[in-house]
């Protein structure tokens, strides 16, 4: 079995055995395949890219071709233990609505996204006065899928506003290793943020 990307490994560690998972923007299905093989997890991936869909069916991962901007209306409320979305939140049209949808169909949500508050990005914009490009954000401003970039603080503020409880947070540097000073000034030092959350109350 190939090694999982570090962020996916962290996500996998958060998922309880034998649970049901919906993976939004599941890519080539590596997370679901790993979860099925190691934790008896069942579920589906949603993906829009035909090539990635082919990879999913090749490895036996259930995948439904869907555009996340059309919501999750194919799924009933509370039909999953977890709804996961890795590195996709920043590229959907309405991240706020999708977060709500995630918590409609799932008991818990897990997202990962690039932190726009990272010091290098701030420095790039501050010093050069141009839109930053870095490891996690390697696109030009005019040709990027990342249309809704946010910082850790932004995300946490949105959760508060929408009555979403954050259960767990983790951060990674851009080479996807845990930053040495994990927990210290994460909004400045983390390149990738990972959150597990549920509806408050």
């Amino acid at each position, binding site marked *: 079995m190939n090694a999982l990307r570090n962020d996916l490994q962290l996500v996998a560690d958060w998922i309880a055995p034998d649970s049901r998972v919906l993976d939004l923007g599941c890519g080539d299905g590596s997370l679901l395949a790993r979860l099925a093989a190691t934790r008896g997890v069942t579920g589906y991936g949603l993906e829009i890219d*035909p090539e990635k869909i*082919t990879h999913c069916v090749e490895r036996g991962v259930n995948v439904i*071709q869907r555009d996340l901007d059309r919501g999750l209306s194919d799924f009933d409320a509370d039909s999953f233990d977890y709804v996961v979305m890795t590195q996709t939140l920043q590229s959907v049209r309405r991240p706020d609505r999708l977060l709500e949808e995630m918590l409609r169909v799932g008991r818990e949500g897990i997202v990962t996204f690039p932190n726009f508050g990272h010091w290098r990005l701030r420095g790039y914009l501050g010093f050069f006065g141009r839109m930053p490009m870095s490891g996690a954000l390697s696109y030009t401003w005019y040709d990027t899928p990342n249309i809704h970039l946010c910082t850790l603080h932004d995300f946490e503020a949105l959760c508060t506003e929408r009555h979403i409880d954050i259960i767990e947070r983790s951060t990674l540097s851009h080479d996807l290793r845990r930053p040495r000073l994990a927990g210290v000034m994460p909004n400045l030092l983390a390149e990738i943020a990972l959150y597990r959350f549920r509806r408050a109350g």
Partner: protein
Amino acid sequence: MPKTIPSDSVGLVAPRHARFDEPLALECGRELPGFELVYETYGTLNADASNAVLICHALSGTHHAAGYHTLEDSKPGWWEAIIGPGKPVDTNRFFVVCSNNLGGCHGSTGPATVNPATGEPWGPDFPMVTVHDWVASQARLADHLGVHRWAAVVGGSLGGMQALQWAIDYPDRLANAVTVAAAPRLSAQNIGFNEVARQAIRGDPDYHEGRYQAMGTVPRRGLMLARMLGHITYLSDEAMHEKFGRDLREGKPDYDFHYGVEFEVESYLRYQGRAFINRFDANTYLLMTKALDYFDPAAAHGGDLARALAGVQARFLVLAFTSDWRFPPARSLEIVRALLDGNKDVSYSEIEADHGHDAFLMPIPQYRDVFAGYMGRIAREIGA
């Protein structure tokens, strides 16, 4: 005529017949005393009979799904794009079976074959058969071939509906179902088109209430019209525009202001209609369209497809084409949603294609890739 047979073709094939003498109780309440199915097979059944794939054909399809009957054949079988060595349904790995449906006109028992009770062709007296009956008859063929459980049952259009019916009727006799460009039931518009086709046939003076064989006639006009109408629904507006546009028939510089063939599209449809007369029986066409109309597995469950599929064990691959307006992607998604509701294994892909419904017959790369990926996983799992 293929000068040489392409290396990715199954090559020369010959149909076979299987006779079943046990009576078959039909959904309509009548019974067939016995029946015969004509079928073809490609590839080799493995020792534990785990690599068999059943192909279900569409409305006007036949058991001749791949390869050539003779070197003089102008065309290979109808799913040559999908079945063959190295193709999505890889005959190097799978034992592939395709039978002509009961009620067909290509060698299986149907309206044009002889009714043993009278010694005359069945004609319009052939009982109404349904998709459920086809599946029951194919289950006997599976027994005959020594196949207890299909690695996959696969079909496009009406054939996809048949694959769905297989998963409902014999949940433990197939590991996978692949439905391509199908729907869980016909819409009013679909039934409407079928009814116009039937009226074209039944209103033909040569139809003689279905006893045209005895009268020595063929309802050519009606059958031709039915096929012309069908053809329009198989193509997208874009595909017709691409293929014909408003081009005048070859060689014509200008309008002639008459009712003969002016446009290329008229010429094409007439050609398709005429060609159909030679290879299809009118009573079979009526029967097949009715089988389509009646198909509705959810009906017995208050219209709830998820409940109809509650017992399904097979994993599903559901494929649809963007420009298919006969069975558009939304109809395939009804199947997907019902399977999701029941937590069944299902994958769905929507193939970008502008050919309309007929896209399921074409070698479209995205279509072949995802289909091959799915079948490849099955082959790996059974060690084929």
